[in-house]
């Protein structure tokens, strides 16, 4: 389905001002049909869940700010969609932000990367350690041990466990 087909089918029942607001977004960000389908799904889902009409959601000040900001269309689309995703998935997004904050608190330097599972599904964090020598590895492990002893890493796994 093309972008125009999608818009025609999915917004046929929308109010004219909502269609106009979305047209501004589509014109500025030029989403692919796949991205546009996500956007339409999320707007409809917010309406079904919260009773908030698409026009109201599209009026979110942060969405407007991103739309008016500098940067390429694909880069703005990425940020704009992420903002809409946060509105669509408020608890998941809040949990992801809390995990991000916890990961920043466990800063072991560039030698260690801790990656939570995508969409928090699976519950397993991936820990990558890069080292060029035994001494470097020992230093990294010592830093990780300090975070373990302080409970920082346990707090991270708590965030992955239950909402």
């Amino acid at each position, binding site marked *: 389905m093309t972008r125009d087909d999608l818009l025609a089918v999915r917004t046929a029942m929308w109010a004219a001002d909502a269609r106009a607001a979305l047209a501004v977004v589509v014109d500025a960000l030029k989403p692919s049909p796949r991205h546009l389908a996500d956007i339409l*799904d999320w707007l*409809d*889902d*917010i*309406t*079904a*869940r919260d009773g908030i009409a698409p026009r109201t959601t599209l009026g979110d000040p942060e969405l407007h700010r991103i739309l008016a900001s500098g940067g390429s269309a694909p880069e703005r689309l990425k940020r704009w969609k992420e903002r809409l995703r946060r509105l669509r*998935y*408020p*608890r*998941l997004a809040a*949990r992801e932000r809390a995990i991000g904050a916890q990961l920043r608190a466990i800063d072991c330097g560039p030698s260690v990367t801790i990656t939570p599972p995508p*969409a*928090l*599904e*699976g*519950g*397993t964090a991936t820990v990558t350690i890069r080292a060029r020598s035994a001494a470097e590895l020992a230093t990294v492990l010592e830093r990780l041990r300090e975070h373990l002893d302080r409970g920082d890493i346990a707090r991270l796994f708590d*965030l*992955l*466990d*239950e*909402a």
Partner: protein
Amino acid sequence: MQARDATTTVVILPEEILIERGCEETAMVRRCRDRAPGVPVRIVDDRDALRDGDFAAAKRRLVLARRRGTALEHCPAGTRGMACCNYLVLTFASNCPMDCRYCFLQEYLADNPALTAYVDPETALAEVGDLLDRHPERQFRIGTGELADSLALDPLTGLSLDLVPFFAARRNALLELKTKTDAVDDLVTMDPRERVVVSWSLAPEAAVAIAEHGTASVAARLGAMRRVVAAGYKVGVHFDPLLEHAGWEEGYRDLVHAVASAVPPSRLAWVSMGALRLSPALRTVMRARFPSTPLLAGEQVPGVDGKWRDFQPLRVRMYRTIRRFVAEALPEGPLYLCMETPDVWERVFGAPPAREQALGAMLAAR
């Protein structure tokens, strides 16, 4: 055993009965015609001509036809990455007269939605008999509620009158009849001899109103539970799908306690929990059929099997909450998860799931 007293609240009469030519004299067809004398009947030569059509309209027209192909299959829950309880499904019907918003049949049967009851249960039962005879050392759990509600058509077809005596005479199989109805009028006239479990899929009434259109009320299902318990059946309970809605914790707590009031501990076979799970194709169908359903607006993400469920920390919370209610009110009931990952099992129960044979045997021994 009780007399057949027709207290079922949800008897779904089709607008028309279509009989495949050659099936007119089968016992099931005669029973259907006797039990629905006011419903128009038509003989059809080509049932394949009924394949297309509107899904909702197809639910209002009952086709009586012979089954093609095998009736007994392994439960599809044992898909990649999911813990499995080694369950077999036996198909006597296709599609369902009720219209749950989340039902996978909307997508699974989209190309062939005709509500069909198979008029030759003896063929399927012969298939089951062969299997049971070949493996007398094994205990089988077999359910009929996969492609249709086990009892929704029973007021018309009287299928349970064939199934219960068959399984009651077997030593190495347990039949599970899974339903959202209260259609137990025929069941209560028979002695299951501990070989039949009648299971209800349950959700709080508020969730039923949102998601389970055309089903019996929770009160009616609980009333039917009491009736089958009095008739000698064991009862299974499936909190599946778990539906998050405003007040879900209180709703499920009250529901678990209501089940405890209806079913004595010794008559409870098992309790399961399963998250709402929607394939991408099912989401598309739901969006087209029920665009304003709140079921699509949960915080669902795709899992290892491609199905969308509430994100893991949220559903772990739901499982643990309901596990706590079950531990309080139904401590005798073995509790398991349906279509969940070993990781979630471990988080909910503190241990990974038993191997599928062990889990299946444990449940079959109930």
